[in-house]
């Protein structure tokens, strides 16, 4: 029996200490999903905490034959989808990440190619901004696929969808992202690098 299953069993028997270990183990996955879904560090923290609370309250319903992480992320994904449906997220700013002290990727000047690193970071930031325009369930599918490295079967289990529905949602989301990426490109380049010398 692995550690996680032991903690789950102990938590089901009422051990808060065991559940705390589960929180420690999965906090990054849950927080990351919530952050990518909701876009704001504060909302993500609140949603992640709430997801763990819901998991705690429904622990007796957890089927031990299912991976705990999938069950937990299913709770978090559904919570975020509900939250997004309840309110339209107005704006989410990447600047807030600095204020909250949450990971903000800064190009490392000591890295072999800081410029390439900076471009990559810029692309990740753009992607993060574009995610907010996706449908809530499509966004959850994309986050689970690329941030959590979930298979289509695992995404289907987490979001209560069929595998073919997941495939179709992933394709639709990828197409939408590509469309937005294409539209955003000229504007972003013009806005972000006005000081740069044109290549021609």
């Amino acid at each position, binding site marked *: 029996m692995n550690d996680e299953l032991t903690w789950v069993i102990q938590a089901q028997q009422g051990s*808060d200490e065991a559940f*705390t270990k589960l*929180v*420690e183990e999965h*906090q*990054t*996955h849950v*927080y*990351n999903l919530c*952050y990518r879904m909701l876009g704001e*560090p504060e909302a*993500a*923290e609140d949603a*992640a*905490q709430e*997801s*763990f*609370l*819901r998991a*705690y*309250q*429904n622990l007796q*319903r957890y089927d031990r034959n299912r991976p705990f992480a999938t*069950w937990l992320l*299913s*709770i*978090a*994904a*559904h*919570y975020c989808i*509900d939250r997004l449906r309840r309110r339209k997220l107005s704006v989410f700013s990447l600047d807030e*990440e600095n204020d*909250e*002290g*949450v*990971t903000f*990727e800064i190009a490392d000047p000591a890295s072999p190619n800081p410029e390439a690193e900076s471009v*990559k970071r810029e*692309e*990740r930031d*753009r*992607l993060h901004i574009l995610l907010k325009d996706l449908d809530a369930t499509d966004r959850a599918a*994309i986050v689970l696929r*690329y*941030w959590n490295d979930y298979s289509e079967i695992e995404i289907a289990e987490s979001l209560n969808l069929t595998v073919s529905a997941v495939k179709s949602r*992933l*394709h639709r989301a*990828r*197409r939408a*992202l*590509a*469309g937005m*990426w*294409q539209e955003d*490109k000229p504007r972003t380049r013009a806005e972000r690098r006005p000081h740069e010398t044109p290549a021609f």
Partner: protein
Amino acid sequence: MKHQPFEDWLLNEKLITSEQKRELTSHLRTCAYCSALAETGMALNAVKAVSPRAGFTDRFQMRLAQRKIADRRRRVWGSILFTFGGLALLAWLMSPYLITFFSSPATWISTLVEWGVYLITTLQAMGQAGFVLLDVIPGFLSPFMWMILLSTMAGISLLWSVSIWRFIRVPQGR
């Protein structure tokens, strides 16, 4: 512009041969959409997970403790309201009879006896009516009708059970 089969290759992230790779590279030079699809694909595959602020577990423990206190408080208040509400309703329904308790002992003893007699006779009458119905009804209904009646009752019971189950069930992740 024709995007197939390049769009499929990019969306499904399948391994492609070197020949296909050459075709794709040349297509990407001319197709802005497929190029954007490839760029977003690369960006998605290079994503990094962000971690919560330090002390997430401590904050969770605090929140859990607060939630437990709030739940306990809600349960206590719920029980108090339920008990007092029930008692108030009972007192209101019983008020005409309770008044007799403040009158002379003879009056409330006679009211009590009246009530007892009323209760016993009512139960007896109901029992007799039930026996009469059980004697009479089978003659009126054919076995086919009985089957339909029992099936309907079973269906209603099942519906009732499912409704109760759905009502008390807390959906996962909501």
